[in-house]
């Protein structure tokens, strides 16, 4: 066991074949590639609070199927720059910048969780860039929040707002909590209860940065779970019926802290013609980590 990221191993995991950086209007985006550089490219988008190298097992399986797999750390995540501002629109611009740096021809896209949501919006604003879409447990749910009395909701929102604003008042002095690789792996395990300690330890070894007082996840401390805003998930659901490219959707069936809890019944009325959506039994939100080979087989068959 070692904390040197270059020697961290996990069965089936392969470091990217190439790493490069793309400038997205002044924000440096770290880009990773697996597979033959002359193979046809596909784009692979990670989820919120994740990073591209969580694809270290899944991406090589797609590369072995004949693809040049291109993924990137979203702004503030992994080894990309911390930005002053974060929004889905900005994430989509960054994704298009990575796409521009890869190919100006349309290509297939695969996204997990929030990455799948971003690609769905990209298909609306830049439909000429996409040929096929795979969504891994990132299809929106139109379900309303559980009903709570009005005054309760006011109090809850007030606390949430005060907490969010309090975070912003001190975000410039925040740093992620340091720890050993083992401790960081354990902490991540609380959000990823179904992933094995070995996998989490591998992620912590390749995905953290060492300094004098220990290792830290490099994700921008300005980013935090939850929050609020005018956005409703059903707005993203409304992007589905008009989607013009073939869609393969994969849904988990076991709810997890980072998952969206979307069921087939939620999305079925909104699916575009010809879409194929599968529910995977006994599988949590990280479908491609729990079942890399099965998901890769599905994707490769769908991409043809």
């Amino acid at each position, binding site marked *: 066991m070692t904390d040197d990221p270059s020697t961290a191993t996990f069965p089936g995991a392969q470091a990217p074949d190439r790493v490069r950086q793309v400038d997205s*209007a*002044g924000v440096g985006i770290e880009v990773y590639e697996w597979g033959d550089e002359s193979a046809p490219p596909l784009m692979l988008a990670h989820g919120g609070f994740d990073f591209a190298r969580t694809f270290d097992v899944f991406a090589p399986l797609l590369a072995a199927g004949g693809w040049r797999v291109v993924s990137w750390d979203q702004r503030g995540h992994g080894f990309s720059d911390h*930005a002053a*501002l974060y929004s889905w629109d900005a994430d989509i611009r960054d994704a298009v910048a990575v796409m521009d740096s890869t190919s100006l021809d349309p290509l297939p896209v695969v996204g997990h969780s929030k990455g799948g949501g971003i690609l769905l919006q990209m298909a609306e*604003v830049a439909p000429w860039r996409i040929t096929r879409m795979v969504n891994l447990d990132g299809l929106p749910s139109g379900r309303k929040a559980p009903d709570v009395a009005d005054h309760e909701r006011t109090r809850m929102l007030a606390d949430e707002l005060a907490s969010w604003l309090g975070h*912003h008042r001190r975000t410039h002095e925040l740093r992620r909590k340091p720890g050993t690789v083992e401790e960081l792996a354990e902490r991540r395990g609380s959000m990823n209860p179904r992933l094995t300690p070995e996998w989490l330890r591998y992620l912590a070894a390749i995905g953290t940065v060492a300094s004098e007082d220990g290792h830290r996840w490099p994700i921008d401390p300005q980013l935090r779970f939850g929050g609020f805003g*005018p956005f409703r998930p059903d707005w993203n659901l409304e992007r589905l019926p008009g989607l013009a490219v073939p869609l393969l959707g994969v849904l988990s069936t076991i709810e997890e802290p980072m998952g969206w809890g979307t069921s087939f019944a939620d999305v079925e009325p909104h699916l575009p013609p010809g879409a194929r959506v599968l529910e995977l039994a006994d599988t949590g939100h990280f479908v491609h980590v729990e079942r890399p080979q099965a998901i890769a087989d599905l994707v490769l068959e769908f991409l043809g």
Partner: protein
Amino acid sequence: MTTATTTTLRHGKVELALHQLRGGDGRALLLLHGLGEASPTAVPPQVADAWPGPVHALDFTGHGASTVPSGGGYTAEFLMADADTALAHLGEVTVLGRGLGAYVGLMLAGARPEEVRGAILDDGPGLAGGGPRPMSAVLHRIDPAAPRPPDPYALAELSSDVRPPDYASTFVRQAVHLSGLDPCLAVAARVRPHWLDEVARQYGVVEEPLAAALTRFAAV
């Protein structure tokens, strides 16, 4: 008359310029400018006589003398946190917002009901935003050649952000329930985009001209 003093405040990676336009005793009036604007360099004449105390004005992120960050990503909520940074510095204030600043002022009044002693929502650039529900989505990509305020990303993103009336009214309810003020919001704007139409109808909101609203909240 020029700006008396400017204080630089930190919000995340952004440095915000807070201008003191007039000193004095008592609660401050905090001016929030409209989309694409910057703080005025002097107390506006329509404010000067009606407000007795100190007057401060904040340049939002990407505007005036505040930082223009790289790569956009603006939300009205981030600007609310800009205004909250000024609040942390000034203590209790009454807020006067123009256009986009009116929407941000409403949010701040709901989010910090104990510290905002009245908010006045006035006409100005960026009052409507992107409307009550999503329009067709667009991809704004801007050549970053000239990073000077106002940030073109701010202009693009904060003129198309969705402002659902029921979202706006949750901030009104919070201000009403938790501020102890009645009324706690004054609509001086004559224009009524959907969100503001809904706000103006809520309990605890008064519609009156700017001078009357300033006098009302100065007496609180």
